[in-house]
């Protein structure tokens, strides 16, 4: 057993070990505090970005060669706080590399800026997260429910929503 190997959980250790990584280099240049936290686990790099700088971070990595937004989704860490983790998966066609951005969002104000201005592909994904988790995306051109009926109450993928629904 054992395919990939070492895990680095500590921000400074990851930044030191991957200093020549294109995304990390570009983000550190943007601002030294742009990366709040970093994790390297099972060959995947996760960078935690401050909620207010997600658009700037996306533009920065897009300019650094990470041209393709693959996926936007959310994880509900209820009852822990901050409750929601928005995960962005970004791919580089030229570098053959993936990175993941994580943005942590508090339950009291579940909102984050929409990145549809950077990648229009985020449109449906953000609508899905809005529909199923109730996280709002500021500046989204068409923030409506996408899966559930328009008049539906509740957000089914939240952890405090029972699997069998409310009866």
């Amino acid at each position, binding site marked *: 057993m054992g*395919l990939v190997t070492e895990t680095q959980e500590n921000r400074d250790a990851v930044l030191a070990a991957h200093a020549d990584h294109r995304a990390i280099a570009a983000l550190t240049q943007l601002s030294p505090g742009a990366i709040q936290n970093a994790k390297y*686990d099972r060959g*995947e790099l996760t960078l935690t970005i401050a909620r207010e700088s997600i658009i700037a971070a996306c533009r920065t990595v897009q300019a650094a060669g990470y041209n393709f937004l*693959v996926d936007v989704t959310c*994880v509900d860490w209820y009852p822990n706080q901050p409750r929601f983790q928005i*995960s962005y*998966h970004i791919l580089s066609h030229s570098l053959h590399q993936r990175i*993941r951005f994580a943005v942590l969002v508090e339950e009291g104000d579940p909102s984050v800026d929409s990145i549809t201005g950077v990648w229009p592909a985020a449109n449906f994904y953000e609508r899905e997260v809005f529909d199923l988790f109730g996280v709002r995306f500021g500046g989204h051109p068409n923030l409506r429910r996408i899966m559930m009926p328009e008049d539906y109450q509740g957000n089914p993928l939240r952890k405090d929503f029972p699997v069998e629904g409310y009866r």
Partner: protein
Amino acid sequence: MGNLMTAPIAVDSSEDRTMILNMGPQHPSTHGVLRLVLEIDGEVVVRVSPDIGFLHTGIEKTCEAKFYQQVVPLTDRLDYCSPMHNNLCYCLAVEKLLQLEIPERAQWMRVLLAELTRLNSHLIWLGTHAMDIGALTVFLYCFREREQILRLFDDLAGQRMMMSYIRIGGLALEPPLDFFPRVRAFLKTMPEKIDEYENLLTGNPIFINRLKGVGLLSKEDAISLGVTGPPLRASGVDWDLRRDMPYSSYEKFQFKVPVSTGCDVWSRYVLRVQEMRESVKIATQAVDGMPGGPIKADAPKIVLPDREVMKTQMEALIHHFKIVTEGFGVPAGEVYQAIESSRGEMGYYVVSDGTAKPYRVHMRNPTFATLQSIEKMCVGRLIADVVAAIGSIDIVLGEIDR
């Protein structure tokens, strides 16, 4: 599921020229339950707004209540035209979480099955796409060959569709003895059959006129809208996960990745037909070079033991009981694993909190993102071209709505 009044852009009623037309969710060319709200001016499309969610069954939520191994049959139900790709992608993701190494034979079998699935899925696409355009005969020809693939799957897994044959740690069963000769015989006839389809379609002036220059999608738009798979490659982006980020030992196979710069429905048609030929080549290489050895990883706490072993060994019986009743714990962490499915990049994002049930499973489905490009493809074109454009995306609503 949105009513007309909440459609995204307000209709400009001042000129009173446009009208709203509902296409679907029961229109035959929408391949399931896609509803398109078309705003049309005469027969020209002014605006397209896809309305999805009719098939939403909450699979992502259901996954959170199941053990890891119980999620495999749910994944079949997403993209029901290529169930093995879903099995494969989910299993690869969980194996990555577990850091589990898979025996070579199982990896090669997975490649073989993935390519047969791709052929199966492309045959459905070709048949229905041609039927949408009006070429009814091709549909019957395609389903004749598809039936052969389904029979192979039936022999292999006991199911024609929804096989759930790829499992965490390997495969469900050793394939039956006559499986490889039968696959080889099928693959031998397949190139001729593809010639046969091409005879019916590729030189057909009606078919060409309906597809050429229709549904244009530029390279820049394709990338910014998250389009993957054949539509991306038909827009001139040379990107195939099988070659560029190989998984399940795809790096050991020789194959070409067809790319076209036509950007239209026609080039997507030509490209998918070429892909079918490449799939035959990959599958043939897999059958010819199939290594021996076990088809399951040596991990008794994760992989179910063989029935025979269970009857003679106490530990095997205990492990079986434990896995079935309690599942197996997966170390905490999050992974994203992507494969090249028939429709593009299929990805599974699995988050574990260390227990026997996944904390979160998210499927990144190719056509969900590709559907966003329908507006770019259709605006300013005729309604009939919308049908061609939908066919060229090759949508499966099961994976879009989840």
